[in-house]
Structures are given as C-alpha cells and as structure tokens.
C-alpha cells in the first residue's frame, strides 16, 4: 500500500467520510486514516438524521454529491417530513436510522471509492515542513506523506466521561483517546474551549411494554433525502412516545447532587437545546412531565434510544427513575447514559475554508470545531475535504455565501462568532431562509458543485434535465395569462383591479393550485408532477425572494470588500481597545465578516472601511508613481 498522498483525512466519522470523499472526487490521491474500518460511519449518539436546519444541510451535502443523503436513504427506517403543516421553506426531512444499515452503506461507499485509500492505523502525530503540514505519523510507526491534512477526530481532545462520580478518560465509550495528536494540537497554541454533551441510557426494546404507548408512525409516503433516490426501499417502523412523571422527577431531584453536572465536576458548557433530564427537572420545576421518544436503533437491533432523558446520574439512579416511566416499568438498561466533556478548537482560529490560520494546509472539521450533530459534521467535512484538495491543486479555498447555503451560514457563524455551546443548525440562523429551502438545494448548489469538480456524471445529468424542465415550465407559466375577470369566472379569488396576470403570478395565490391552472390551460398538464410541485413552491416565495435580492446585493458588496489578513489594527485610528482585540483575534477576511463579529460597532466598521480604502488608494497611487 502506498504511503504517499495528496490529502490525508484523520477520522472515519461523519466529517471524515465526507472530507475523504470530497477530496477524492476532486481527483487528488486521498487517504482516510482510522483506528478501525469497522467503525467507519458509526452513529455514536442519536440514531437519526435530518430535522429542521439539519435536513437542509443533508440536502445541500447531497446537492454537492456528498454521501450522507444517499447513505441515509438506504438506512432510514422511519422517514418523516417535519413541519408539513407549515410552509415548504421550513419543512425538515428527518429519518430514524438503522445504525447497522447506515454503517454498512457508508463503508460500502468509502471502501470502494475511487482515489481513496483507507488505512487502519492511529494518527499519533503530524509532521511539518517549511511551515506547512507534510504528513502523518501512525501509531504503527509508519509515516504517511501528505500535502494537506484534515483532522476530524470529534471529541477526543481531553475527553472525559462523567457518570455519577465516575470519570473515564475516553472519546466515546470503549475508544481510547489519541494522546500524541492531541499534544501536537495543543503545541500549536490554538485557542481552545471546553464543552459537554450528554447521552441517555440505551434500553433493551424487548423489555419495553410497547402496547401501553402512543406510537408515532412514519410518513405514508417517505420522501428521500437524496435528489438521486427515487424511492425508499427499507421497511418503515414506528417510534414510541412516553412521558416522565412526578415520581420520576422526585427521584431525579433527590439525587441531583450525584449528577456530574450538578456536583460541579463538569466545567464545560452544554447545549441549551439538549438539556439533561436533571436540567429539565431543575430548571422547569413546574412541569409535571417531559416527553420521551423511544427510537429503535435498527430493524434487527433491540437497542432503543430514549430521546429526551440524557443524564449523568449514577447507573443505579438511572435504573430507578427510568422504571417510573409508563411502558418502562420492567425495562433493562443495556448501557447507562453519561455526559462527556471535551476540548474543542475555537473555530475563530480557522479561515472560511476551514483551514487553520496558523498552520497552512491543516484543516479541521466536525465536533473538534465545537459543533454537534452528524449533519453539521458532514457539511464541514465536505468543505474541508474540498478545500484541502484545492490547496493541493494550488487553488484558493471555495466558500459558500450565507445567501447561498446553510453550509455557508454554518461555516461563517463558526469562523466569525465562534461557539459558546455545541453549535447546532436551526432555520432561524439563516437570514435567507425563504430561498434556502430543502427542496431547491440542487438548484442552488449543484451547478456550483459541477464547476468545483465535486459532482459526478449521474448527478450532473439528472440536474441538467430537471433544470431544463423547471425553466421551460416557468416560461410556459409566464406565457399564459388571464384578466381578473376571466379568473373570477373560474371561481378564483383575485383582486378585480383590471390587471392581467400570468399563470405564474396566479400560482403565488395560496388559494390557486396547479390543478386549477391546468384546467384553464390544459397544456400545462404535460409538465411532470415533481416539476409542478417545485414550481408551486417557487411561485409561493417569488415575491419574498425579490424583496431579499437587495439585501443579498448589499451582503455581496460587503463580502467583496477584502481586508488584508496582515492588517495592523493598531494603526487603524478610532478603534476601541476591545474592538481591536476582537478584530486581531478573528482577522476577518471581508468587511461583511467584520460586521457580523459580536460587539463590532457601526463606528468601528466605518473606521475600518476608511482605513482599508485609504490604504488601497495609497498603494495604487504609489504603484503608478
């Protein structure tokens, strides 16, 4: 086996798989180094993919020909489109995943990937030559050379598991953390922070009294994640819903001091959106119950993930409180829950290409950057792998804008604002949410993916066919028109303002469906159903998208104003000390990024803009002089 590569990806989790695949798709010689091939694609936490914001990320990864959506389509056992009662911009595709099927499908992709070698070894160190990374030293003693490296090692930095009074140094349960690589990262003197997250006990589904529980079925017609998947073949299951009660809360409250979080043993900050059951009971003391989803981890797996009761209480307390819950009176715990505390690299140490500013050609992606979730990890992995390959090819980093993709929002939030809790995507983080929909991720990103060399032939041709169909469908709708009078005769409720409107404009009315239009213009019926649905969604938001255009233009203007990386902020007049320190730490690459840094005043921006402009004018005139 070769030991000479262009890009080496360390870690075989969700970020690692996407990074390795993206780099390999660009045609550079890529290797993925992992402790164990059998662990590639492991879902270490909740066996589900997607949701609000997260589902959007999965669709975007897919639009750029990444792996996660296709793999999830082969492993999803309960597909649900969340928010179906609300507008399509905030629909969130989500699926419960069979962990075994997912691992199998992901390993199948990775182990058979062109341009990609998988090496079973621990990464003990990385080497540097001339101020750039140059290779990886394995625990086996072998060295592997590389022109760029992507580290996607999750929570391994000083990871400590807490359960009651027990402290176990670990990555995930049963995995030893890699000490050498961690030391190397600490030696780089990157800014670090500490976070925590938790997980609930895993239950034996055979000991749950399912008959007593409310069941939540899958959607009757599962909608796949991937734009390339026609239909879901995996059989679908239902999840159970149960609740804690006063008795449960009493046990938890009495044992609160035994929880690692409440005894003060944990310093790291946990996510506000995923509190432990101790937190819920303590902070919302007036609530008499909390909801729990009982999520089977697979079709042939009796492990059940009780979503909603993550905890770091001692095992015996977990046993006691779980049994007070309806349906779980006789339950057997397979593995008690725990909290894990770990260091992360402050992502403000990275540029928009996810490259470490202090060490060129080193990229970081996933939980190591302070995020949580498979989808957030996968999205970063894709961008880091892409940009690692581009750096090998001598190209500048590719960056997605906040107005183009949730991936753009994710990366920009991380490198500009940093994190104070494990970062998770929400649709409310995306200011252009009405145009960044899960249904149009392909229309937004696949062309870009083709230009970047990320997209294979099959997806490219599927995209082109759909794109042409959408264009001609829209043109057709714009060519047909009716007066309000004619519309009223058809029973449509429209303004009688004498204004002739196109079929496209009528489609924007909530009360007028595509079928109504087809009755007026029978030719429209030739448009394929999927295209009709897509056009209907686009028409709904068309007015808003136009409104947002000027916002987006302003954003692009600010993003086009580059600030030199080497700018001496001390020489910028009129900056307060506090602002200067922040700017020096983050070193924003554009005025737009500077404006999104917390605590940057309009005055500081004006001063910065004036300084950069003046400097540029001076440079230009001295060149001429």
């Amino acid at each position, binding site marked *: 086996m070769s030991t000479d590569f262009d890009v080496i990806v360390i870690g075989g989790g969700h970020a690692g798989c996407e990074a390795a695949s993206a780099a390999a798709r660009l045609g550079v010689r890529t290797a993925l180094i992992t402790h164990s091939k059998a662990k590639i694609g492991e879902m270490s936490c909740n066996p589900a993919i997607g949701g609000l914001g997260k589902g959007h990320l999965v669709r975007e990864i897919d639009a750029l020909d990444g792996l996660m959506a296709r793999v999830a389509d082969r492993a999803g056992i309960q597909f649900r489109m969340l928010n179906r009662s609300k507008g399509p911009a*905030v629909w969130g595709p989500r699926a419960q995943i069979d962990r075994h099927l997912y691992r199998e499908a992901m390993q199948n992709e990775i182990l058979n990937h062109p341009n990609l070698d998988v090496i079973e070894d621990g990464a003990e160190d990385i080497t540097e030559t001339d101020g750039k990374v140059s290779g990886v030293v394995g625990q086996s003693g072998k060295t592997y050379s590389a022109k760029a490296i992507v580290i996607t090692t999750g929570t391994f930095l000083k990871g400590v598991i807490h359960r009651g009074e027990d402290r176990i140094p670990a990555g995930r349960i049963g995995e030893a953390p890699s000490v050498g690589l961690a030391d190397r990262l600490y030696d780089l003197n990157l800014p670090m922070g500490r976070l925590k997250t938790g997980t609930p006990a895993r239950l034996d589904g055979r000991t749950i009294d399912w008959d007593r529980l409310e069941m939540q079925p899958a959607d009757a017609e599962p909608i796949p994640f991937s734009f390339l998947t026609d239909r879901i073949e995996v059989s679908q299951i239902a999840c159970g819903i149960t609740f804690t009660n006063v008795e449960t809360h009493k046990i938890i409250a009495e044992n609160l001091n035994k929880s690692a979080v409440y005894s003060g043993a944990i310093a790291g900050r946990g996510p506000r959106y995923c*509190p432990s059951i101790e937190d819920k009971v303590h902070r919302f003391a007036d609530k008499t119950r909390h909801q729990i*989803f009982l999520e089977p981890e697979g079709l042939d797996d009796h492990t059940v993930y009780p*979503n909603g009761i993550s905890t770091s209480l001692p095992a015996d307390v977990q046993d006691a409180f779980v049994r007070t819950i309806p349906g779980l009176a006789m339950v057997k715990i397979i593995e008690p829950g725990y909290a894990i505390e770990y260091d992360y690299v402050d992502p403000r140490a990275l540029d928009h290409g996810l490259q470490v500013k202090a060490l060129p050609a080193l990229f970081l992606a996933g939980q190591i950057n302070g995020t949580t979730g498979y989808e957030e990890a996968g999205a970063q992995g894709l961008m880091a792998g892409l940009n690692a390959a581009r750096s090998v090819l001598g190209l500048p980093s590719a960056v997605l804008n906040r107005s183009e993709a949730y991936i753009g929002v994710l990366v920009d939030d991380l490198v500009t604002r940093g994190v104070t809790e494990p970062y998770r995507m929400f649709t*409310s983080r995306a200011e252009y949410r*009405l145009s960044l929909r899960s249904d149009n991720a392909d229309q937004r990103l696949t062309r870009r993916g083709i230009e970047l060399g990320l997209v294979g032939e099959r997806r490219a041709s599927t995209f082109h066919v759909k794109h042409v169909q959408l264009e001609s469908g829209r043109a057709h709708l714009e060519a047909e028109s009716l007066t309000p009078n004619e519309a009223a005769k058809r029973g449509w409720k429209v303004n009688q303002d004498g204004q002739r409107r196109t079929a496209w404009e009528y489609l924007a009315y909530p009360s007028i469906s595509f079928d109504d239009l087809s009755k007026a213009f029978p030719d429209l019926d030739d448009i394929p159903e999927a295209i009709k649905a897509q056009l209907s969604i686009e028409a709904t938001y068309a007015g*808003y998208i136009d409104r947002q255009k000027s916002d987006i233009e302003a954003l692009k203007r600010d993003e086009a104003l580059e600030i030199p990386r080497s700018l001496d902020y001390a020489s910028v007049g009129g900056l307060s000390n506090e602002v200067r320190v922040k700017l020096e730490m983050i070193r924003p690459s554009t005025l737009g990024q500077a404006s999104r840094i917390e605590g940057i005043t309009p*005055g*500081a921006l004006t001063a910065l803009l004036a300084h950069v402009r003046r400097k540029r004018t001076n440079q230009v005139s001295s060149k001429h002089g």
Partner: protein
Amino acid sequence: MPGPASYTGEDTLELSLHGGQIIVDLALAALYEAGARLAEPGEFTRRAFQAGKLDLTKAEAIADLIDATSVAQHRQATLQYDGALADLYGDWRQRLTECHALLEAGIDFPDEEDAPTQVGQPVLVILEQLITNLDAAMDSGNITERIRDGFQIAILGKPNAGKSTLLNRIAGRDAAIVTDIPGTTRDVVEVRLILGGYLVWLSDTAGLRETLDVVEAEGVRRAHAKADEADLRLWLVAPGDTAPAEAGSGPQDILVHSKSDLREADDVSRETFQISAATGAGVDALISEITRRLKSIGAQAEAPMITRARHRQAITSARQEFSQATSMLQSGYGLELVSEHVRQGSKLLASLTGHVEVEDVLGEVFSSFCIGK
C-alpha cells in the same frame, strides 16, 4: 487626558483660559503655529462614535445639544443623552425578541411537547402592542421635531388686517415690508425668534381673498398651505370686518382683533384679544397667550422622543412590516412568512434598538420553553 478614558478615546489636552477674546486669540495663534487646526463641526463626537464611546442615539443627542438654541431644545437633548431613548428602544427590542422567540419556537421545534403549537395569539398581542407603541412614539415625535426645528406660527387674515405690522412688532424689527396698500404681502415672510424658551418661526402671509391676479392668487394659496401646517394660527380681524371663512376655533387658533387704536370702545367682546400693532397695545398679552399654548403642546414631549427624520422613516417602515405580519397571521399565512415580515421590521428598527441577534432569540426560546429532544 490619556486615552481611552477621554471623550474621544484618544489622548486629549484641555486648556482652561481666562475670559476675554484677546487671551483666546493668542492661545489659538500659538496652537496654529505648533501645527494644530480647528476641529470640524461635530468632529469630536464623530471620533468618539468611531471609537465606540457613544452609540448612535447618544451621538445624535450630542449633535442636538451642540445645535440647541433654546432652553426646551436643550432639555430634550439632555433627556435623550441620559438614556431615556435607550430605555424605550430597549423595551421594543425585548418585545421583538419575545415575538421572534415565539415564532421561531413554532418553526424550529415542531416535535417538542413544550414548544408552543398555537403561537398566533401571543404573537398578535405583542405585535399589536408594538404597533401602538410605535404610533405613540410617532405622535410625540412630531412635537419633538417641532421643538428641535421650531414651532410654526402663522399670522392669517383678510388683506390689510394688520398682519405684517404685527409680525414686525413681535419680531421687534422690520422683517417685512409694511404698507397699508391691500395685497402688498404676496409671499410668506418668516421670522425666527425665541418665545417662552421655544424656537418659533413666525410667518406673515398674503391676505385671504378671492383674486384674479395670478401672483396674488399664488400668495393666497401659500397662505392656506401655511395655515395647514402651522402649530398655531393667529387670525387677525380689522375693525368693522368679519373673520375669514377659514378661521377655526380649535386649540391651534387664536382670534385677534387688530387696530384697537382705531376701534370704538366695546366694539368686540372682551374674551378675544385686542391689539394695536402700531402702538403696541395688547401685544404683550398676545405673546404670553402664544407662549402658554406652546408650553402646553411642548409638555406632551416630555416623554422620550424621536428626534430625527431618520428615526421616523425607520419607524414608519417597521410599522408597515408589523401590520403586514399581523394581517397575514390573521389570514392564516405560514409562520415563516409572518416571521420574515417581523424580521424585516426588526432590521429597520436596528439602527434604534440594535440588532435582535439570533443568539438572543434562541436564548429566549430555551429559557421560556423546555426544549430538548
């Protein structure tokens, strides 16, 4: 004074000199020779703003303070600097954050038992309160702008009622041509003065009458326009004449019988003002009545106010977004569209309230609702 503790955040030298123009002139001459220059208007405040020492509303308040030419203006500028405005805007910001939090909790957490499923009603309540608050601020904003820019007082009446003479008498100088030929004043003549601590624009207008003269007709049209925008209207009636048909009797109108020196005794009732602008009789009583009325209008402006047209613009546009959001919520449009209007409205108010940050909204969601699947 070493920075950054100084006003501008930069190192600053302050000289206290004895009064007397010669000392000041000598000191300035020495400073010029040493390479100093005079500050441009507002330059210190601009530097302080750029250094992040002042927020935008404070900087504007100081600009007003520097411009203040009357006691009332000064009082209001001081009020704004003290943060009364900042408190008002802080309250709006809090309401907006709550409103966003409700909408976003409804959108981003659909599977949560504790996340509100029916956010429409509470969102409506907040939006309607907010709209009421914006309207109140706009109303008082009108007065505030008047305090800053000056109240408008129009002198109105038929031709040759003595309007120009009254203007000259009040202004204490010949600001308009005074003749007794009817129709001499064809345009509006304005005098800027201070009455009872308020800045006032007193305007003399063309006599109101039907006319075929094109130039005079234009003067009459302008007089009507002036009457419409005025905060106070002085309606002048000459002896033996009646008040013009346009004359009102509201709190903005004062009926004045002019040329009292030419009147028979008891020609008019004692309740109306009788003046002789020519002799000055009764003019002081009229001035104190004008001052009394200005003070009662001005008193409404003691609450924190909107002092800039920029603020009014932002508030008007934001109000439109919020009322659009309200009606869409009532007609059953999707929350994501309602939220878009609220977001746009918040953005418009951001120059007043500061940005409503996503993190603050999420913080509100997580502290109000037990979310955690």
